């Protein structure tokens, strides 16, 4: 009689141990499962160049800036007709958020007399005036001599190896007596002009 009961008890005890063992295993608190949420965004490559402003360096023989036009007061000496010195500082609020290239481009290759493209000036007269544009932009200091040797598009490109934000500065200077003929050559009458482009672009 006892044998079957003991056997039964043993079986139940075994079951009880089994439950206890299972309980002990599940009593260990499960490790927290963190939920991860990536936060993603993009900043595209971007360059900005604002409108020109007169810099703090003052104007020498230049009139005020009108829009994007900087007018020289008196290009030629009224007595000798030789080029008079002139200088101006112009700044552009600018930004490029990646390594880039800054390009100065003279459309004419100098200050050239308009209205007579392709026609040489009378002998002894000059019809072009060289000038220098000195660029300051981030780590770059570059001098762009626009020599007026020929009426043609002329460029200077400089690599800038890092993003830059701030003022892009140009110092424009015309030397006294400068011309595309000889020093102090008289300038033929006319309207002299050039267009200087400042471009920030990918390398």
């Amino acid at each position: 009689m006892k044998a079957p009961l003991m056997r039964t008890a043993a079986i139940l005890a075994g079951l009880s141990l089994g439950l206890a063992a299972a309980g002990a295993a599940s009593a260990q608190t499960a490790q927290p499962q963190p939920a991860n949420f990536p936060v993603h965004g993009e900043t595209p490559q971007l360059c900005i160049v604002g409108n020109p402003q007169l810099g703090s360096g003052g104007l020498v023989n230049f009139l005020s800036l009108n829009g994007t036009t900087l007018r020289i007061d008196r290009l030629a000496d009224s007595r000798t007709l030789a080029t008079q010195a002139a200088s101006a500082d112009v700044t552009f609020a600018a930004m490029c958020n990646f390594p880039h290239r800054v390009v100065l481009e003279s459309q004419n290759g100098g200050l050239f007399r308009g209205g007579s493209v392709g026609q040489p000036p009378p002998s002894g007269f000059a019809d072009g005036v060289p000038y220098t544009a000195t660029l300051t932009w981030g780590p770059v200091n570059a001098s762009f001599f626009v020599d007026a040797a020929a009426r043609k598009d002329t460029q200077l490109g400089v690599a800038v190896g890092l993003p830059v934000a701030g003022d892009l500065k140009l110092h424009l200077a015309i030397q006294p007596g400068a011309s595309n003929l000889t020093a102090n050559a008289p300038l033929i009458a006319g309207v002299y002009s050039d267009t200087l482009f400042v471009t920030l672009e990918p390398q």
Partner: protein
Amino acid sequence: MTLSKPLACLALATLLAPVAAHAAPAPATGVVTINANVAPRCEGGTLDGASSTFEMGILIDTSSGLLLNDLSAPPKTLVGAFCNTKSSISIIATPMQAQSFTGAPPVGFTDAIDYTASASGWTPTAATFTTDAASNPAALQTRDAAFTGDITVEVSNFTPVGGVALRPVADPNYLGTVIVTLAAVS
């Protein structure tokens, strides 16, 4: 069928025979103790939606290069979170860091974006973490009783690391991470 009944009767007779031989048998008792535990457990729920990523898109104002001041993304929801005991919810976040840009950002630029991440719905006060804060005491919240519900995770208040005047450098992949953890508290 005809053989099964006699066999059953024989088995019963065999069991009853010892009882008949002893007039007052001592009772035999078997003791069974049954124990079981329900372990403290928390489950963080199931993400509602296909992606866990907060996609912020273009981060800058393309007319100025400055960080947009109205960056936002739809919240993420963890549906059916539960804890069968007292619990805590914690949140941490890392700034969005430009992944391709190397070196120190130049003057005027930054290569990282701070923001605030929050997890609400589980505790009366949302757990929040601001990536540029010196400390984040609200990042850990506790709930005293078992609970089941949804957890809403949000990001907001994006600012350039280093100051609002700084522009983010160009980079196709600014990446940060928000981590929400639901845990049982013993």
